[in-house]
């Protein structure tokens, strides 16, 4: 999008000289407070709204050059309440665009059935009507309908904002999975910053008046908000959120306080830690214990303190590690491998160290890029 402006006849400017390069095969999220022009921006891409100034190029070609219906049929479009056709069955809803493109009835239906499976809908729902489906299911149908003709581009306008948080999380995960499988170019509008951070490969933060505040990958938004507006929009726990983008692989782990349940007293005495983590024979964590209690008598699972939720180094972020440490009664986070066996523990101090290192590395990166 090159310097695109949308001005309404009454003089209000919905989008103001917006330039945006949307990368292929990734999710670009437009986020901002209501009235910031994010929906208008999205709708200019499929010409539901015609820009007053500026041009929008798709693969280098001006979208004004092709007939509007052809353009729209080459882009999937998903809206807030799904917008299903209540007089058509689920299968026929999904088959709408293929039918418009002149596919045969049979082929369209087969394609629709295939898509239902892809978005996680039971095939038995195909003969139902939209009113017989839950909100989350309807939204899945909306996504399937948009994907039906296999368009390279998918436009999504606050598609998940009308469903409850649990269902929304499921839909978001599903979308990420579908994106991974199909590699579509997705433009996604939301007012929910958490959703933007979770889904976006790149996130465009827009401000009231239709101006772009910042366009960057989520981690960069968190580390370097362009101005006070973006900082404010990201919320108060920006620092904590940013940890989500720091890997926990480099975190220094210690196995000192880790003790198998059948270990001898001298093994326990060898660790001078105030608490020890007791594991079972397979190496899975059982719980924390005071070393003095252990030397005194037998280990019973009831006598142990809960170890909280463990994290997986390398897979989980520093945020997860910190969360484990904060939740743990001893202040130590338990690290396990993918099979659930303890690989070590990390103190809050060690996590703090890792965070400082990550920040330093980030600054070094910036320093390399900046000049």
């Amino acid at each position, binding site marked *: 999008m090159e310097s695109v402006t949308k001005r309404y006849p009454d003089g209000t400017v919905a989008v103001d000289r917006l330039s945006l390069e949307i990368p292929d095969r990734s999710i670009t999220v437009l986020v901002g407070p209501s009235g910031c022009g994010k929906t208008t921006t999205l709708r200019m891409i499929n010409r*539901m709204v015609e820009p007053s100034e500026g041009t929008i190029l798709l693969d280098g070609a001006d979208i004004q050059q092709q007939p509007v219906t052809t353009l*729209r049929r080459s882009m999937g479009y998903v809206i807030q309440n*799904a917008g299903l*056709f*209540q*007089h058509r069955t689920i299968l026929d809803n999904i088959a709408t665009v293929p039918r418009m493109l002149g596919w045969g009835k049979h082929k369209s239906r087969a394609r629709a059935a295939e898509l239902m499976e892809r978005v996680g809908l039971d095939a038995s729902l195909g003969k139902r009507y939209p009113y017989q489906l839950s909100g989350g299911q309807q939204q899945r149908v909306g996504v399937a309908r948009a994907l039906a003709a296999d368009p390279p581009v998918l436009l999504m306008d606050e598609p998940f904002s009308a469903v409850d948080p649990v269902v929304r999380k499921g839909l978001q995960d599903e979308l990420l999975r579908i994106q991974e499988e199909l590699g579509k170019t997705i433009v996604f509008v939301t007012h929910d910053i958490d959703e933007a951070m979770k889904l976006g490969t790149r996130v465009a933060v827009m401000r009231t008046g239709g101006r772009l505040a910042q366009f960057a990958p989520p981690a960069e938004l968190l580390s370097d908000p362009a101005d006070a507006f973006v900082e404010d929009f990201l919320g108060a726990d920006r620092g904590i959120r940013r940890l989500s983008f720091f890997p926990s692989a480099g975190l220094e782990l210690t196995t000192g306080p880790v003790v198998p349940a059948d270990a001898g007293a001298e093994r326990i005495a060898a660790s001078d830690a105030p608490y020890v983590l007791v594991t079972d024979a397979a190496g899975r964590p059982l719980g924390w214990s005071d070393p003095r209690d252990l030397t005194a008598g037998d280990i019973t699972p009831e006598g142990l303190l809960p170890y909280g939720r463990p994290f997986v180094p390398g897979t989980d972020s520093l945020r997860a590690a910190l969360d484990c440490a904060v939740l743990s009664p001893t202040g130590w986070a338990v690290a396990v491998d993918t099979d659930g066996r303890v690989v070590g523990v990390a103190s809050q101090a060690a996590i703090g160290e890792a965070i400082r290192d990550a920040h330093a590395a980030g600054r070094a990166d910036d320093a390399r890029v900046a000049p």
Partner: protein
Amino acid sequence: MNVLNFVNAFFSDGAHWHGYDGIPQRLLEHVRYSLLALALAAAIGLPVGLLTGHTGRGGNALAFIATAARALPSFGLLVLIVILMGFGLLPVMIPLVVLAVPPILVTTYEAVRSVDPSPVDAARGMGMRESRILFQVELPVALPLILSGLRSAAVQIVSTATIAAYVSLGGLGRYIVDGLYQRDYEKVVGGATLVAVLALVTLAVFWAAGRLAVSPGVRRR
């Protein structure tokens, strides 16, 4: 129960069942006038209502025209037109069409306007042409309301088509007008009963049409 006696007497009189003034003949004439008037009114009201409803423009002008048309007295209009044009089918059709257009027009407009905008938005976004949006997205959802407009127009036409008899045409009104001049109340009541029954049949026809034409997804059962 005077009225019931009249009804009984009217229908048990064998003479009322034969010939040019027999019940089958008059019923057929009445149905013909009614269908013709309904078809004409629908030919005017439906396209205009669909178009204005789809674009959302002209709603106020429409309300004004409908109010004006409703205000015109059917009987007065009939007499006036007969005085000006003489007897015939056309003078009967004009007041009936004037009577039936407003309910069809206004309900059709309202029906299309009240369709949930999000499927329309979705349809436009997936590249449907406007005509296709109107006929494949809006119309099926608006159909129950549109049918109810046609239904009330049809019932009013069936009831008012009796005025055809006043200008020497046939139909069930014949019994009522003739009965009035002949002081034959049996005939009047018989005619009125037939008109009421025909109105009920009209309702049944529209109910059946609704069952057949409206998608179960819109009916929600």
